[in-house]
Protein backbone atom coordinates (compact mmCIF):
# COMPACT_ATOMS: atom_id res chain seq x y z
CA UNK A 1 0.00 0.00 0.00
CA UNK A 2 1.46 3.32 -1.04
CA UNK A 3 0.12 6.21 0.99
CA UNK A 4 0.39 9.51 -0.87
CA UNK A 5 1.97 12.32 1.10
CA UNK A 6 -0.47 14.89 2.38
CA UNK A 7 -0.09 18.66 2.41
CA UNK A 8 0.42 19.89 5.97
CA UNK A 9 1.25 23.22 7.62
CA UNK A 10 4.94 22.92 6.87
CA UNK A 11 4.51 22.00 3.20
CA UNK A 12 4.08 25.52 1.86
CA UNK A 13 6.83 26.89 4.09
CA UNK A 14 9.22 24.23 2.85
CA UNK A 15 8.19 24.97 -0.72
CA UNK A 16 8.76 28.66 -0.16
CA UNK A 17 12.33 27.89 0.88
CA UNK A 18 12.86 25.75 -2.20
CA UNK A 19 11.70 28.60 -4.46
CA UNK A 20 13.91 31.15 -2.67
CA UNK A 21 16.82 28.73 -2.93
CA UNK A 22 16.22 28.61 -6.70
CA UNK A 23 16.76 32.38 -7.02
CA UNK A 24 13.11 33.14 -7.72
CA UNK A 25 13.33 36.17 -5.43
CA UNK A 26 10.98 37.06 -2.57
CA UNK A 27 8.26 38.83 -4.59
CA UNK A 28 7.70 36.14 -7.24
CA UNK A 29 7.92 33.50 -4.51
CA UNK A 30 5.24 35.20 -2.42
CA UNK A 31 3.05 35.56 -5.51
CA UNK A 32 3.45 31.90 -6.40
CA UNK A 33 2.77 30.71 -2.85
CA UNK A 34 -0.43 32.78 -2.65
CA UNK A 35 -1.56 31.45 -6.02
CA UNK A 36 -0.99 27.93 -4.72
CA UNK A 37 -2.98 28.71 -1.56
CA UNK A 38 -5.86 29.99 -3.72
CA UNK A 39 -5.78 26.88 -5.89
CA UNK A 40 -5.71 24.57 -2.85
CA UNK A 41 -8.76 26.35 -1.44
CA UNK A 42 -10.57 26.39 -4.78
CA UNK A 43 -9.75 22.88 -5.95
CA UNK A 44 -9.56 21.25 -2.53
CA UNK A 45 -6.70 18.87 -3.30
CA UNK A 46 -4.77 17.55 -0.30
CA UNK A 47 -1.89 15.56 -1.75
CA UNK A 48 1.61 16.85 -2.26
CA UNK A 49 1.83 15.48 -5.81
CA UNK A 50 -1.14 17.65 -6.79
CA UNK A 51 0.54 20.64 -5.18
CA UNK A 52 3.70 20.05 -7.19
CA UNK A 53 1.70 19.61 -10.38
CA UNK A 54 -0.03 22.92 -9.69
CA UNK A 55 3.30 24.58 -8.97
CA UNK A 56 4.53 23.42 -12.36
CA UNK A 57 1.44 24.91 -14.02
CA UNK A 58 1.85 28.22 -12.20
CA UNK A 59 5.50 28.48 -13.21
CA UNK A 60 4.64 27.59 -16.81
CA UNK A 61 2.09 30.42 -16.84
CA UNK A 62 4.83 32.82 -15.87
CA UNK A 63 7.41 31.80 -18.43
CA UNK A 64 5.31 31.42 -21.55
CA UNK A 65 5.58 29.08 -24.49
CA UNK A 66 8.37 27.28 -26.26
CA UNK A 67 9.61 28.33 -29.67
CA UNK A 68 10.61 26.48 -32.77
CA UNK A 69 13.82 28.46 -32.93
CA UNK A 70 15.89 26.48 -35.44
CA UNK A 71 13.10 25.85 -37.94
CA UNK A 72 13.79 27.70 -41.20
CA UNK A 73 10.06 28.29 -41.71
CA UNK A 74 9.97 30.51 -38.64
CA UNK A 75 12.88 32.75 -39.66
CA UNK A 76 11.80 36.42 -39.87
CA UNK A 77 14.12 37.25 -42.78
CA UNK A 78 17.04 36.14 -44.90
CA UNK A 79 19.60 36.39 -43.50
CA UNK A 80 18.20 35.89 -40.00
CA UNK A 81 20.54 38.07 -37.92
CA UNK A 82 21.05 37.15 -34.26
CA UNK A 83 23.18 39.23 -31.92
CA UNK A 84 24.44 37.60 -28.72
CA UNK A 85 25.10 39.87 -25.74
CA UNK A 86 25.70 39.60 -22.01
CA UNK A 87 28.10 40.23 -19.19
CA UNK A 88 31.56 38.66 -18.97
CA UNK A 89 31.99 34.93 -18.83
CA UNK A 90 28.30 33.86 -19.02
CA UNK A 91 28.75 31.57 -22.03
CA UNK A 92 28.09 33.69 -25.15
CA UNK A 93 30.89 32.37 -27.38
CA UNK A 94 30.25 28.72 -26.47
CA UNK A 95 26.50 29.16 -27.02
CA UNK A 96 27.13 30.57 -30.49
CA UNK A 97 29.13 27.48 -31.42
CA UNK A 98 26.23 25.29 -30.29
CA UNK A 99 23.63 27.45 -32.09
CA UNK A 100 25.59 27.35 -35.34
CA UNK A 101 25.71 23.57 -35.08
CA UNK A 102 21.93 23.32 -34.47
CA UNK A 103 21.05 25.65 -37.35
CA UNK A 104 23.30 23.74 -39.69
CA UNK A 105 21.89 20.38 -38.54
CA UNK A 106 18.43 21.77 -39.30
CA UNK A 107 19.47 22.66 -42.84
CA UNK A 108 20.43 26.35 -42.64
CA UNK A 109 23.66 27.98 -43.79
CA UNK A 110 25.32 29.94 -40.99
CA UNK A 111 27.87 32.74 -40.85
CA UNK A 112 29.49 33.75 -37.55
CA UNK A 113 30.71 37.31 -36.95
CA UNK A 114 33.67 37.55 -34.55
CA UNK A 115 32.82 40.95 -33.10
CA UNK A 116 34.65 40.41 -29.81
CA UNK A 117 37.85 42.06 -30.92
CA UNK A 118 38.84 42.96 -27.39
CA UNK A 119 39.37 39.94 -25.14
CA UNK A 120 42.56 37.88 -25.37
CA UNK A 121 42.13 34.97 -27.81
CA UNK A 122 38.38 35.60 -28.19
CA UNK A 123 38.62 35.33 -31.98
CA UNK A 124 40.71 32.12 -31.77
CA UNK A 125 38.17 30.62 -29.37
CA UNK A 126 35.28 31.40 -31.73
CA UNK A 127 37.25 30.11 -34.74
CA UNK A 128 37.56 26.73 -33.07
CA UNK A 129 33.80 26.64 -32.45
CA UNK A 130 33.08 27.67 -36.06
CA UNK A 131 35.29 24.83 -37.23
CA UNK A 132 33.56 22.33 -34.92
CA UNK A 133 30.16 23.46 -36.18
CA UNK A 134 31.34 23.43 -39.81
CA UNK A 135 30.42 27.05 -40.49
CA UNK A 136 32.19 30.13 -41.89
CA UNK A 137 33.43 32.98 -39.78
CA UNK A 138 34.04 36.65 -40.55
CA UNK A 139 36.86 38.11 -38.48
CA UNK A 140 39.27 41.01 -38.45
CA UNK A 141 42.48 41.49 -36.49
CA UNK A 142 42.32 41.54 -32.72
CA UNK A 143 41.86 45.12 -31.49
CA UNK A 144 40.01 46.26 -34.62
CA UNK A 145 36.59 47.94 -34.69
CA UNK A 146 33.86 45.41 -33.79
CA UNK A 147 31.27 47.39 -35.78
CA UNK A 148 33.41 46.97 -38.90
CA UNK A 149 33.39 43.19 -38.40
CA UNK A 150 29.61 43.24 -38.21
CA UNK A 151 29.25 45.43 -41.31
CA UNK A 152 31.51 43.04 -43.17
CA UNK A 153 29.56 40.02 -41.97
CA UNK A 154 26.19 41.53 -42.99
CA UNK A 155 27.43 42.16 -46.51
CA UNK A 156 29.09 38.76 -46.75
CA UNK A 157 25.87 37.06 -45.58
CA UNK A 158 23.84 38.82 -48.25
CA UNK A 159 26.29 38.22 -51.08
CA UNK A 160 26.71 34.56 -50.08
CA UNK A 161 22.96 34.14 -49.58
CA UNK A 162 23.36 32.84 -46.03
CA UNK A 163 20.34 31.86 -43.95
CA UNK A 164 21.65 32.89 -40.53
CA UNK A 165 24.22 35.30 -39.11
CA UNK A 166 25.21 35.03 -35.45
CA UNK A 167 27.17 37.93 -33.93
CA UNK A 168 29.50 37.31 -30.97
CA UNK A 169 30.18 40.38 -28.83
CA UNK A 170 32.64 41.01 -26.02
CA UNK A 171 31.36 40.44 -22.51
CA UNK A 172 30.59 43.70 -20.74
CA UNK A 173 29.06 44.68 -17.43
CA UNK A 174 25.75 46.50 -17.92
CA UNK A 175 27.04 49.23 -15.61
CA UNK A 176 29.82 50.26 -18.00
CA UNK A 177 28.20 53.07 -19.99
CA UNK A 178 31.04 53.39 -22.50
CA UNK A 179 30.87 49.68 -23.30
CA UNK A 180 27.09 49.84 -23.67
CA UNK A 181 27.62 52.77 -26.06
CA UNK A 182 30.01 50.58 -28.06
CA UNK A 183 27.34 47.90 -28.28
CA UNK A 184 24.77 50.47 -29.42
CA UNK A 185 27.18 51.55 -32.16
CA UNK A 186 27.57 47.94 -33.32
CA UNK A 187 23.79 47.81 -33.48
CA UNK A 188 23.59 51.01 -35.55
CA UNK A 189 26.22 49.84 -38.02
CA UNK A 190 24.41 46.52 -38.27
CA UNK A 191 21.22 48.39 -39.23
CA UNK A 192 23.13 50.42 -41.78
CA UNK A 193 23.84 47.20 -43.63
CA UNK A 194 20.48 45.53 -42.98
CA UNK A 195 17.80 47.89 -41.58
CA UNK A 196 15.78 45.24 -39.77
CA UNK A 197 18.82 43.58 -38.19
CA UNK A 198 19.46 42.23 -35.67
CA UNK A 199 16.16 40.32 -35.82
CA UNK A 200 16.91 38.81 -32.42
CA UNK A 201 19.13 40.22 -29.70
CA UNK A 202 19.56 37.45 -27.18
CA UNK A 203 20.90 38.07 -23.71
CA UNK A 204 22.88 35.19 -22.20
CA UNK A 205 22.43 34.77 -18.45
CA UNK A 206 24.35 32.36 -16.25
CA UNK A 207 21.86 29.98 -14.57
CA UNK A 208 23.58 30.64 -11.23
CA UNK A 209 22.96 34.40 -11.37
CA UNK A 210 21.21 35.95 -8.41
CA UNK A 211 19.04 39.06 -8.33
CA UNK A 212 21.66 41.00 -10.30
CA UNK A 213 20.33 39.16 -13.36
CA UNK A 214 17.28 41.40 -13.25
CA UNK A 215 19.49 44.49 -13.29
CA UNK A 216 21.44 43.08 -16.25
CA UNK A 217 18.27 42.32 -18.20
CA UNK A 218 16.76 45.75 -17.49
CA UNK A 219 19.76 47.58 -18.90
CA UNK A 220 20.27 45.34 -21.91
CA UNK A 221 16.57 45.54 -22.73
CA UNK A 222 16.48 49.34 -22.48
CA UNK A 223 19.72 49.99 -24.32
CA UNK A 224 19.88 47.15 -26.81
CA UNK A 225 16.23 46.18 -27.14
CA UNK A 226 17.08 42.63 -26.05
CA UNK A 227 14.40 40.30 -27.39
CA UNK A 228 15.02 37.12 -25.43
CA UNK A 229 17.05 35.22 -22.86
CA UNK A 230 19.41 32.28 -23.14
CA UNK A 231 20.06 30.54 -19.81
CA UNK A 232 23.53 28.97 -19.93
CA UNK A 233 25.05 26.47 -17.48
CA UNK A 234 21.75 24.90 -16.45
CA UNK A 235 23.68 21.62 -16.06
CA UNK A 236 24.91 22.75 -12.63
CA UNK A 237 22.83 22.70 -9.44
CA UNK A 238 21.41 26.18 -9.99
CA UNK A 239 17.85 26.34 -11.32
CA UNK A 240 17.98 29.59 -13.27
CA UNK A 241 15.11 31.03 -11.23
CA UNK A 242 16.09 34.60 -12.03
CA UNK A 243 14.87 34.02 -15.60
CA UNK A 244 11.33 33.76 -14.25
CA UNK A 245 11.66 37.22 -12.66
CA UNK A 246 13.08 38.54 -15.91
CA UNK A 247 10.10 37.23 -17.87
CA UNK A 248 7.64 38.42 -15.23
CA UNK A 249 9.04 41.96 -14.97
CA UNK A 250 10.42 42.64 -18.43
CA UNK A 251 8.46 40.20 -20.57
CA UNK A 252 11.68 38.79 -22.01
CA UNK A 253 11.02 35.20 -23.11
CA UNK A 254 13.47 32.39 -22.43
CA UNK A 255 14.46 31.04 -25.83
CA UNK A 256 17.29 28.56 -25.37
CA UNK A 257 19.11 26.77 -22.56
CA UNK A 258 22.73 25.67 -22.39
CA UNK A 259 23.37 22.38 -20.64
CA UNK A 260 27.09 21.78 -20.96
CA UNK A 261 30.35 22.60 -22.70
CA UNK A 262 29.92 20.40 -25.77
CA UNK A 263 28.62 21.21 -29.24
CA UNK A 264 25.32 19.38 -28.61
CA UNK A 265 24.61 20.91 -25.21
CA UNK A 266 21.91 23.33 -26.29
CA UNK A 267 18.16 22.89 -26.10
CA UNK A 268 15.12 24.92 -27.00
CA UNK A 269 13.40 26.19 -23.89
CA UNK A 270 10.62 23.87 -22.70
CA UNK A 271 8.51 25.52 -19.93
CA UNK A 272 7.54 22.20 -18.31
CA UNK A 273 11.17 21.07 -17.97
CA UNK A 274 12.16 24.43 -16.51
CA UNK A 275 9.22 24.35 -14.09
CA UNK A 276 10.04 20.82 -12.94
CA UNK A 277 13.45 22.13 -11.90
CA UNK A 278 11.75 23.94 -9.02
CA UNK A 279 9.71 20.99 -7.82
CA UNK A 280 11.35 19.42 -4.77
Amino acid sequence: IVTKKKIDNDTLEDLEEVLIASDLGTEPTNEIISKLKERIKKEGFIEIDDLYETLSEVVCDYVGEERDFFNKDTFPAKPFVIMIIGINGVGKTTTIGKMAHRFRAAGSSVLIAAADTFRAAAIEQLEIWAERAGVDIVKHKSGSDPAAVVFDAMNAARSRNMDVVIIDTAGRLHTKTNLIEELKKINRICKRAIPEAPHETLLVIDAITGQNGLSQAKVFKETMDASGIIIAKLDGTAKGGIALSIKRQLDLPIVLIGTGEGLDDLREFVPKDYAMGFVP
Partner: protein
Amino acid sequence: SLSERLNDIFKRLRGQGKLTEANIKDALREVRLALLEADVNFKVAKDFINEVQEKAIGEEVLKSLSPGQQVIKIVFDELVKILGQHTSLLEIKNKPEIIMLCGLQGSGKTTLAAKLAHFFRRRKPLIAACDVYRPAAIEQLKVLGKQIQIDVYSIDNCKDPILISKEALQAAEEEDYGVLIIDTAGRLHIDEEMMNELENLKAIIKPTEILFVIDSMIGQDAVNVASEFNNRLEFSGIVLTKLDGDARGGAALSVSRITGKPIKFVSIGEKPKDLEIFHPDRMAQRILG
Protein backbone atom coordinates in the same frame (compact mmCIF):
# COMPACT_ATOMS: atom_id res chain seq x y z
CA SER B 1 18.05 52.02 1.06
CA LEU B 2 17.95 49.70 4.07
CA SER B 3 18.63 52.48 6.60
CA GLU B 4 15.74 54.53 5.17
CA ARG B 5 13.42 51.54 5.36
CA LEU B 6 14.41 50.83 8.96
CA ASN B 7 14.03 54.46 9.98
CA ASP B 8 10.53 54.51 8.48
CA ILE B 9 9.60 51.31 10.31
CA PHE B 10 10.83 52.61 13.65
CA LYS B 11 9.12 55.97 13.15
CA ARG B 12 5.86 54.12 12.67
CA LEU B 13 6.48 51.79 15.60
CA ARG B 14 7.52 54.63 17.90
CA GLY B 15 4.21 56.28 17.23
CA GLN B 16 2.62 53.34 18.99
CA GLY B 17 4.43 53.92 22.31
CA LYS B 18 7.61 52.45 23.63
CA LEU B 19 9.55 49.93 21.54
CA THR B 20 9.24 46.25 22.34
CA GLU B 21 11.32 43.20 21.51
CA ALA B 22 8.62 42.20 19.04
CA ASN B 23 9.10 45.53 17.26
CA ILE B 24 12.80 44.82 16.88
CA LYS B 25 12.04 41.39 15.44
CA ASP B 26 9.75 43.01 12.87
CA ALA B 27 12.46 45.44 11.91
CA LEU B 28 14.94 42.59 11.54
CA ARG B 29 12.61 40.92 9.04
CA GLU B 30 13.30 43.93 6.86
CA VAL B 31 17.03 43.33 7.23
CA ARG B 32 16.59 39.69 6.30
CA LEU B 33 14.69 40.70 3.15
CA ALA B 34 17.49 43.10 2.24
CA LEU B 35 20.03 40.30 2.65
CA LEU B 36 17.98 38.00 0.40
CA GLU B 37 17.75 40.74 -2.22
CA ALA B 38 21.53 40.98 -1.98
CA ASP B 39 21.77 37.23 -2.74
CA VAL B 40 22.82 36.10 0.72
CA ASN B 41 21.83 32.44 0.98
CA PHE B 42 18.49 32.18 2.80
CA LYS B 43 19.76 29.78 5.49
CA VAL B 44 22.82 31.95 6.12
CA ALA B 45 20.56 35.01 6.30
CA LYS B 46 18.25 33.31 8.79
CA ASP B 47 21.11 32.26 11.10
CA PHE B 48 22.70 35.66 10.79
CA ILE B 49 19.50 37.49 11.75
CA ASN B 50 18.99 35.18 14.75
CA GLU B 51 22.46 36.08 16.01
CA VAL B 52 21.92 39.78 15.41
CA GLN B 53 18.58 39.57 17.20
CA GLU B 54 20.32 38.54 20.42
CA LYS B 55 22.32 41.75 20.30
CA ALA B 56 19.53 43.97 18.96
CA ILE B 57 16.87 43.37 21.63
CA GLY B 58 18.97 45.03 24.30
CA GLU B 59 18.17 48.19 26.27
CA GLU B 60 20.35 50.51 24.16
CA VAL B 61 18.24 49.87 21.09
CA LEU B 62 14.86 49.88 22.84
CA LYS B 63 15.61 53.16 24.61
CA SER B 64 17.59 54.74 21.77
CA LEU B 65 16.56 57.96 20.04
CA SER B 66 17.47 56.39 16.74
CA PRO B 67 16.82 52.66 16.99
CA GLY B 68 17.02 52.28 13.21
CA GLN B 69 20.62 53.51 13.26
CA GLN B 70 21.43 51.28 16.21
CA VAL B 71 20.12 48.18 14.46
CA ILE B 72 22.00 48.99 11.26
CA LYS B 73 25.20 49.45 13.26
CA ILE B 74 24.78 46.09 14.96
CA VAL B 75 24.06 44.39 11.61
CA PHE B 76 27.01 46.13 9.94
CA ASP B 77 29.47 45.27 12.70
CA GLU B 78 28.32 41.66 12.69
CA LEU B 79 28.74 41.45 8.90
CA VAL B 80 32.24 42.90 9.06
CA LYS B 81 33.12 40.45 11.81
CA ILE B 82 32.05 37.44 9.73
CA LEU B 83 33.55 38.67 6.46
CA GLY B 84 36.80 39.70 8.05
CA GLN B 85 37.31 37.24 10.86
CA HIS B 86 39.71 35.09 8.94
CA THR B 87 41.35 37.92 7.08
CA SER B 88 44.80 37.02 5.98
CA LEU B 89 46.90 38.32 3.17
CA LEU B 90 48.48 36.07 0.64
CA GLU B 91 52.12 36.15 1.70
CA ILE B 92 55.00 34.83 -0.28
CA LYS B 93 56.73 32.53 2.20
CA ASN B 94 57.70 29.58 0.03
CA LYS B 95 60.16 29.19 -2.78
CA PRO B 96 58.33 29.13 -5.08
CA GLU B 97 54.92 30.09 -3.72
CA ILE B 98 52.56 27.75 -5.59
CA ILE B 99 49.10 29.25 -6.11
CA MET B 100 46.45 27.01 -7.64
CA LEU B 101 43.29 28.65 -8.99
CA CYS B 102 39.95 26.81 -9.12
CA GLY B 103 36.29 27.58 -9.63
CA LEU B 104 33.26 27.37 -11.89
CA GLN B 105 33.31 28.08 -15.61
CA GLY B 106 33.69 31.75 -16.51
CA SER B 107 34.34 32.95 -12.94
CA GLY B 108 37.47 34.87 -13.97
CA LYS B 109 40.35 32.49 -13.17
CA THR B 110 42.49 33.00 -16.28
CA THR B 111 42.26 36.77 -16.05
CA LEU B 112 43.00 36.45 -12.32
CA ALA B 113 46.17 34.48 -13.08
CA ALA B 114 47.43 37.47 -15.04
CA LYS B 115 46.32 39.84 -12.29
CA LEU B 116 48.11 37.85 -9.61
CA ALA B 117 51.23 37.67 -11.78
CA HIS B 118 51.08 41.44 -12.15
CA PHE B 119 50.49 41.87 -8.39
CA PHE B 120 53.57 39.76 -7.64
CA ARG B 121 55.57 40.97 -10.65
CA ARG B 122 58.63 41.73 -8.53
CA ARG B 123 58.78 38.11 -7.41
CA LYS B 124 59.39 36.71 -10.90
CA PRO B 125 56.05 34.94 -11.43
CA LEU B 126 55.41 32.03 -13.80
CA ILE B 127 51.92 31.05 -14.95
CA ALA B 128 51.20 27.39 -15.75
CA ALA B 129 48.56 26.95 -18.47
CA CYS B 130 46.70 23.85 -17.27
CA ASP B 131 43.30 24.36 -18.92
CA VAL B 132 43.59 21.78 -21.66
CA TYR B 133 39.87 21.76 -22.43
CA ARG B 134 38.54 25.21 -23.27
CA PRO B 135 39.17 26.27 -26.88
CA ALA B 136 42.08 28.72 -27.04
CA ALA B 137 42.49 28.81 -23.23
CA ILE B 138 46.23 28.39 -23.51
CA GLU B 139 46.37 31.01 -26.24
CA GLN B 140 44.43 33.36 -23.95
CA LEU B 141 47.12 33.00 -21.28
CA LYS B 142 49.93 33.42 -23.77
CA VAL B 143 48.39 36.68 -25.00
CA LEU B 144 47.86 37.93 -21.43
CA GLY B 145 51.39 36.93 -20.50
CA LYS B 146 52.81 38.88 -23.43
CA GLN B 147 50.75 41.93 -22.48
CA ILE B 148 52.33 42.08 -19.01
CA GLN B 149 55.66 40.49 -19.89
CA ILE B 150 55.13 37.49 -17.66
CA ASP B 151 56.28 33.99 -18.60
CA VAL B 152 53.64 31.38 -19.31
CA TYR B 153 54.51 27.69 -19.13
CA SER B 154 52.54 25.55 -21.58
CA ILE B 155 52.95 22.33 -23.53
CA ASP B 156 51.39 22.25 -26.98
CA ASN B 157 49.06 19.34 -27.67
CA CYS B 158 49.39 18.04 -24.12
CA LYS B 159 46.10 16.94 -22.56
CA ASP B 160 47.51 16.22 -19.10
CA PRO B 161 47.17 19.15 -16.67
CA ILE B 162 49.15 17.30 -14.01
CA LEU B 163 52.10 16.78 -16.34
CA ILE B 164 52.03 20.47 -17.33
CA SER B 165 51.98 21.55 -13.66
CA LYS B 166 54.78 19.17 -12.74
CA GLU B 167 56.99 20.48 -15.53
CA ALA B 168 56.06 24.08 -14.74
CA LEU B 169 57.01 23.51 -11.09
CA GLN B 170 60.28 21.98 -12.15
CA ALA B 171 60.98 24.98 -14.39
CA ALA B 172 60.03 27.34 -11.57
CA GLU B 173 62.47 25.68 -9.18
CA GLU B 174 65.29 25.39 -11.71
CA GLU B 175 64.95 28.91 -13.02
CA ASP B 176 64.31 30.58 -9.70
CA TYR B 177 60.75 31.85 -10.18
CA GLY B 178 59.27 33.23 -6.95
CA VAL B 179 55.61 32.49 -7.63
CA LEU B 180 53.98 29.75 -9.70
CA ILE B 181 50.35 30.42 -10.58
CA ILE B 182 48.42 27.42 -11.86
CA ASP B 183 45.39 28.23 -14.02
CA THR B 184 42.90 25.36 -14.23
CA ALA B 185 39.82 24.76 -16.35
CA GLY B 186 36.47 25.91 -15.03
CA ARG B 187 34.38 23.01 -13.78
CA LEU B 188 31.13 22.17 -12.03
CA HIS B 189 31.31 21.12 -8.36
CA ILE B 190 29.17 18.10 -9.33
CA ASP B 191 31.48 16.92 -12.10
CA GLU B 192 33.07 13.92 -10.39
CA GLU B 193 35.86 13.42 -12.91
CA MET B 194 36.88 17.07 -13.04
CA MET B 195 36.79 17.47 -9.24
CA ASN B 196 38.98 14.36 -8.97
CA GLU B 197 41.42 15.98 -11.38
CA LEU B 198 41.73 18.96 -9.03
CA GLU B 199 42.24 16.67 -6.02
CA ASN B 200 44.97 14.81 -7.88
CA LEU B 201 46.59 18.05 -8.96
CA LYS B 202 46.64 19.21 -5.34
CA ALA B 203 48.08 15.91 -4.12
CA ILE B 204 50.91 15.92 -6.64
CA ILE B 205 51.85 19.58 -6.86
CA LYS B 206 51.12 20.44 -3.19
CA PRO B 207 50.18 24.10 -3.74
CA THR B 208 50.91 26.46 -0.87
CA GLU B 209 47.76 28.43 -1.68
CA ILE B 210 44.52 27.27 -3.29
CA LEU B 211 42.30 30.18 -4.33
CA PHE B 212 38.62 29.54 -5.01
CA VAL B 213 37.44 32.06 -7.61
CA ILE B 214 33.81 33.09 -7.49
CA ASP B 215 31.72 35.55 -9.50
CA SER B 216 30.18 38.20 -7.22
CA MET B 217 26.81 38.01 -8.94
CA ILE B 218 26.06 34.41 -8.07
CA GLY B 219 22.86 33.61 -6.25
CA GLN B 220 21.64 31.06 -3.72
CA ASP B 221 23.67 28.21 -5.23
CA ALA B 222 26.87 29.78 -3.86
CA VAL B 223 26.74 27.63 -0.74
CA ASN B 224 26.44 24.38 -2.70
CA VAL B 225 29.35 25.24 -4.95
CA ALA B 226 31.63 26.63 -2.26
CA SER B 227 31.08 23.82 0.23
CA GLU B 228 31.75 21.15 -2.39
CA PHE B 229 34.96 22.81 -3.56
CA ASN B 230 36.02 23.31 0.05
CA ASN B 231 35.20 19.75 1.11
CA ARG B 232 37.25 18.40 -1.77
CA LEU B 233 40.16 20.80 -1.73
CA GLU B 234 40.28 22.65 1.61
CA PHE B 235 41.09 25.83 -0.28
CA SER B 236 43.04 28.52 1.54
CA GLY B 237 41.38 31.60 0.18
CA ILE B 238 38.59 33.08 -1.89
CA VAL B 239 38.70 35.66 -4.67
CA LEU B 240 35.51 37.54 -5.58
CA THR B 241 35.39 38.77 -9.17
CA LYS B 242 33.48 41.33 -11.24
CA LEU B 243 32.95 43.63 -8.29
CA ASP B 244 33.11 46.54 -10.73
CA GLY B 245 29.49 45.71 -11.51
CA ASP B 246 26.44 46.44 -9.35
CA ALA B 247 25.93 42.99 -7.87
CA ARG B 248 25.40 43.38 -4.11
CA GLY B 249 27.65 40.35 -3.60
CA GLY B 250 25.76 38.56 -0.81
CA ALA B 251 27.52 35.38 -1.93
CA ALA B 252 30.56 36.76 -0.10
CA LEU B 253 28.74 36.38 3.23
CA SER B 254 27.37 32.94 2.34
CA VAL B 255 30.73 31.58 1.23
CA SER B 256 32.59 33.08 4.21
CA ARG B 257 30.10 31.56 6.64
CA ILE B 258 29.87 28.15 5.04
CA THR B 259 33.60 27.61 4.48
CA GLY B 260 35.21 29.76 7.16
CA LYS B 261 37.88 30.65 4.62
CA PRO B 262 39.19 34.20 4.08
CA ILE B 263 38.41 36.34 1.07
CA LYS B 264 41.88 37.44 0.03
CA PHE B 265 41.35 39.51 -3.09
CA VAL B 266 38.63 41.17 -5.11
CA SER B 267 38.76 41.66 -8.85
CA ILE B 268 37.35 44.95 -10.08
CA GLY B 269 37.87 44.89 -13.82
CA GLU B 270 39.34 43.13 -16.82
CA LYS B 271 42.85 44.61 -16.78
CA PRO B 272 45.89 43.10 -15.01
CA LYS B 273 45.98 46.00 -12.54
CA ASP B 274 42.31 45.48 -11.51
CA LEU B 275 43.02 43.47 -8.37
CA GLU B 276 42.60 44.70 -4.80
CA ILE B 277 43.03 43.39 -1.29
CA PHE B 278 39.66 42.51 0.25
CA HIS B 279 38.12 45.03 2.67
CA PRO B 280 35.38 43.50 4.86
CA ASP B 281 33.84 46.86 5.79
CA ARG B 282 33.48 47.91 2.14
CA MET B 283 31.89 44.55 1.35
CA ALA B 284 29.49 44.82 4.30
CA GLN B 285 28.42 48.27 3.09
CA ARG B 286 27.84 46.93 -0.39
CA ILE B 287 25.79 43.95 0.76
CA LEU B 288 23.55 46.18 2.90
CA GLY B 289 23.06 48.53 -0.03
